[in-house]
Each structure stands twice: as C-alpha cells, then as structure tokens.
C-alpha cells in the first residue's frame, strides 16, 4: 500500500467520465434555461416577453392581454413541459437500468398504455366508481398511476424468472400488455358518450395545451416527488448492471431497489401521461444520447436525463405550436417523428452487440 505510485494522484483517472458528465449537466442547465425562455417568448400570439419584461422593470403596467398570454398560458405550459419531459426521460433511464437494457421505455413496454387505461377508466366510468368523489381533481392522475404501476409490476413478474430478467420476454410481454391495455381502452371509448369521447380524444393526442395553474397544482407534487427521489436509485442501478446476484453481493437490497424503481417509474410516467397524454420516445432517446456521451453512470445519467428531457420536450412543444400556428400539431407526433427513426437506428446499430 505504501509504495503506491504518486503518479496516480493529481490527475484525472483514465476511463473516468464523471467530470465530463458534470460539465454536461451544467451545459444542460443552460440549454434548459434557453428552452424555457424561448417557450415564454415564442407563441402564436405576438406578445413579446422582452417588451413585457422591459415594461415591468421600468415600473409600467403590462397589458392585461400580455399578462394572460405570459402568465396564464405560456408559463404553466413551460412548467408542465419541463415536468413531463423530465418525468418521461427519467422513467426511461430508470426502466432501462432496472431491465438492464437500453430498449426499455415506458411507451414501448406498455407502462404508458397502462396509464392510459387507468385514465380512461375514470373518464368513462368515473361517475360509477365509489372512490371518485373522494379523490376529486386527483382522480385521473391517481388512476393513471395505478395503471402504470400495475403494468410495470405485471411486466416485471412475467419477464423475471429466478432473479433474471429476460429482455426478449420483456419486450414481447410489453407489446402484448400494451395491446391488451389498448384493447380495453378501445372498449371503454366505445362505451363512452360524446362528451367523454371528446375528453379522451383530446387527452390521448398528447399535448401540453391543457396546462393551467390548476392542473399544475396536481402535476407538480405528483411528478416532482418521483423525480427528486430518483437519484436515490443511482448507485443501486449501477450495481444492478452487474446482474442481480452480483448487485446483492455488493450489499445492495435488490428487492427494495426494484420496488423503488417500479414505484418511481409508475409515479412519474403515470402522472406525466395523465396530464399530457401519450408522448412517446422521450424516455428512450434522451438516456441513450447521454450514455453515448458520458457513459451509463446513473449518478449523472438520471439528473442529466431530467434536464435534457425537459429541454427537448420544451423545444418539441415550441415546434408543435409554431409550425402551423395558430393551430397546433400534437406534440406526440413530433416526438414520434424524431424518436421513431432514432429507435430503429439504435436497434440496427446494436443488433450485433445486444443479444435479444
């Protein structure tokens, strides 16, 4: 021990990407800030954030219209975009760590479909359910969470035998679960009356357009709680990359980690899907990009995923409401247009390396 070479100290160890990951984190904070400002500054209306700010600083009154556009329309939407983007990206990263596979994504393996089903159940059957009145405005979110949680649990149970999670089984079972959940959703939509159908259709298109302060009072706690808890999983997910047995030998309470990961994914995805509908591919694109740059260390991956996911979703939302302004393209369409080809690219690139 005493004769260890001095040359080890005072230089960044080769193969250590943590400093790069921290730097990237700061860059992503800047990117997110820019995305937030753009989200506030740009929109269908000609309201100028800069004029409003300028007027405010000079102590002049801001017009009522500008106040409404900035404060009641754009700001809640930006906050919602941050939360949903972060939630989807972190859910993806956690799910991929849990399944030990970069292809796991809440949208692909049926977690989002489970959340949709949960939401639809209360939209359509809400009046008949005994606990509906009790939960009030939380109803859709709670039900989407329960749907996402059930889907994740079932999926994990099916795909895991003797402590090993089979990726092929997981993807196939996920597709089957998603199909089943969508079929049940279809049945409920079929039974729905016109008003319920309208509620569901708008909700299902995937949009941040419904963002409002009242919705945020529900979404902020529901989404931020799992987001802020997710870093607690980081060391465990790193160890889990060695497999469940080796992670256990390293001192990890594997079962608790798995349960925590499932709760966090279900909570974040459930709440995000509940408030914004089906927005796909954020969970797969964001963590994958970050792993390419700074490696898979979850201590940085989870935080950076939240930042990049939030920034990307804000930019996608910016596109969605300006491309054909004053109309809006559902944001899910934009993320699918970018994410679909990206997903195929990962599959093709990894086909030789990752044995499905």
């Amino acid at each position, binding site marked *: 021990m005493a004769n*260890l070479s001095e040359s080890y100290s005072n230089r960044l160890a080769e193969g*250590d990407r943590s400093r790069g990951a921290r730097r990237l984190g700061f860059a992503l904070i800047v990117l997110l800030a820019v995305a937030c400002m753009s989200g506030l500054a740009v929109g269908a209306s000609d309201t100028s954030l800069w004029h409003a700010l300028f007027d405010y600083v000079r102590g002049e009154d801001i017009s009522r219209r500008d106040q409404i556009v900035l404060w009641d329309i754009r700001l809640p939407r930006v906050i919602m975009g941050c939360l949903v983007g972060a939630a989807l990206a972190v859910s993806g990263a956690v799910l991929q760590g849990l399944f030990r596979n970069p292809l796991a994504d809440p949208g692909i393996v049926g977690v989002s479909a489970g959340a949709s089903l949960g939401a639809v159940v209360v939209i359509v059957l809400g009046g008949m359910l005994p606990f509906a009145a009790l939960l009030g405005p939380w109803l859709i979110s709670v039900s989407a969470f329960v749907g996402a949680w059930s889907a994740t649990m079932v999926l994990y149970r099916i795909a895991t035998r003797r402590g090993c999670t089979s990726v092929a089984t997981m993807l196939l079972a996920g597709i089957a679960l998603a199909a089943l959940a969508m079929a049940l959703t279809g049945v409920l939509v079929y039974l729905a009356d016109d008003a319920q159908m309208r509620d569901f259709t708008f909700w299902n298109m995937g949009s941040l357009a419904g963002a409002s302060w009242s919705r945020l009072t529900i979404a902020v706690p529901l989404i931020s709680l799992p987001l802020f808890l997710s870093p607690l999983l980081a060391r465990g997910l790193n160890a889990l990359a060695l497999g469940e047995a080796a992670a256990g*030998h390293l001192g990890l309470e594997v079962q608790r980690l798995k349960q925590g990961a499932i709760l966090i994914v279900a909570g974040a995805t459930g709440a995000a899907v509940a408030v914004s509908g089906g927005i796909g591919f954020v969970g797969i694109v964001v963590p994958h990009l970050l792993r390419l740059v700074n490696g*898979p260390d979850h201590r940085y991956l989870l935080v950076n995923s939240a930042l990049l996911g939030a920034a990307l979703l804000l930019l996608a939302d910016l596109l969605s409401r300006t491309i054909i302004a004053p109309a809006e393209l559902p944001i899910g369409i934009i993320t699918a247009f970018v994410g679909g080809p990206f997903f195929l690219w990962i599959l093709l690139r990894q086909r030789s390396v990752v044995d499905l």
Partner: protein
Amino acid sequence: MLTARDLSVNYGSKPVLRGVDLTAHPGQLTAIVGPNGSGKSTALKAVTGELPFIGDVRLSGMDVAHARPGDLASVRAVLPQFTPLAFPFTVLEVVRLGVSRGATFNCDQIVNEALHRVGLDGYQGRYFQELSGGEQQRVQLARVLVQVWQPVGDDGPRWLFLDEPVSSLDIGHQLQIMQVARTFADMGGGVIAVMHDLNLTAMFADKVVLFSNGGVVSQGTATEVFTDDMLMQAYGCRIAVSMAPSSGPFILPQTAALNI
C-alpha cells in the same frame, strides 16, 4: 470462520446439495473441487447467501440466511463464474463499483492497484465489453478485491468467494490470479475457491473439499484428498497422482476412461 452445517439446496423438487458440512478458516485458501454438476457452485452460492438453503451457515459469527446484504458485503466479496454487464461501462467504472459507500481510502489508488494485481495496468479507459473473456474475468476480480481491500479489517477477517476464478485464463494469468488469492489468505483473509484445475488446487490450497453427487466425499490437505482411488471414484476416470518434491501432489489424467 465459515461454518456450514447440514446444508441442503433444492432446485424445485430436485435436491442438488444434501446435508453438506463445511468449514473454512481465515488465513487459509480452501478449494472446492469435484466433477460438473456435483454441487460445488451451488454450495458456494448457498454460503454466500445468493441461493436459499436449508441448514445453518455462519460467516464470522453472522447468520448468512438472515444477514442484511450490506453487512455481508462488508466482510465478504464474491466473484461469480460469469458476470454479464449491461451498458458500456469502462474498466475503471466497473472496478469502482466495488468501492463501498462509506469508503475512506483514496478509491482511485486502490482501483489502480487492484488492476495492477490482476495484470491489467493501463486498461482503465477500455470498454469492458470490448475485452476478452479472460480479461473481463480479471476486471471482475479487481472489483471484488476492491470490495474487501484489507484482508483483515477492524472487525475481523474478510473473505473472498471465488467461483472458478481461473477457468477462462491462460496458464500465466492462472498462476498470477491464484497468487493474488494466496496472498490474500497469507495476509489473514479467508479464501474459498471453486476450482477445476486439480494441479493448481494442489499447488495453492491449504484445504481441499471434494464434492461428488451433491455431497462432500473427502476433505483435508491436497495430499490427503487427492488419491488415485478417491479421484477415480469422484470423477469416474483414471487419474494418476504423483508427488513432486517441491509442490506436493500432481495429477496426471490417464487415457482410458472407465465409466464413460
């Protein structure tokens, strides 16, 4: 000290380990040998707490069946036969996984020294998945060494459980890795290794436990356990045991198989 009493393991309804008694002492390298499917790895997995078992296993006084993973991890590290790794970690990042949360030592120094001991100087920045099977196994051994860096801690000896640590290695690295394990034992730690190579076992082990058909058929020093009759009975083939003047018994397989 490790003691296992009346240790049994079933896979489903099939018993793979039947009433095994096993002891291993710190400061010694204990080798578990036996033919394929004789229960060696199962026994190792049971005493590390990885597999549920019937019986009583105590490691340094701890009841393994009910100990918390964190408590076990602080006194023993386990090298599996094969460790699949998800995601593109670098060698440095893999070995760092062995560093415990409250580690007070300079972790990068230890990591580099561990890589040096397993003959992987300069591999820190390589991707784990790009390495050969033998190199991957040595990276995992470095990670395991980092986990129990001091063979004797403040609270007693540390333990290394190695499942076929040298099976995928060339002869030079086999000797190097066995020497690493030997040194760990000489410094007061306990080593339990599942081995296939009987000559290496004879050369490095203080104590040999011979498994056959889910039970222990013989244990003692290599000289005591490795006899023509005993090995023929366990492995079902003719094996000639001779004595080398310097390193004890050596084993020479004979061509004609008896029971195959």
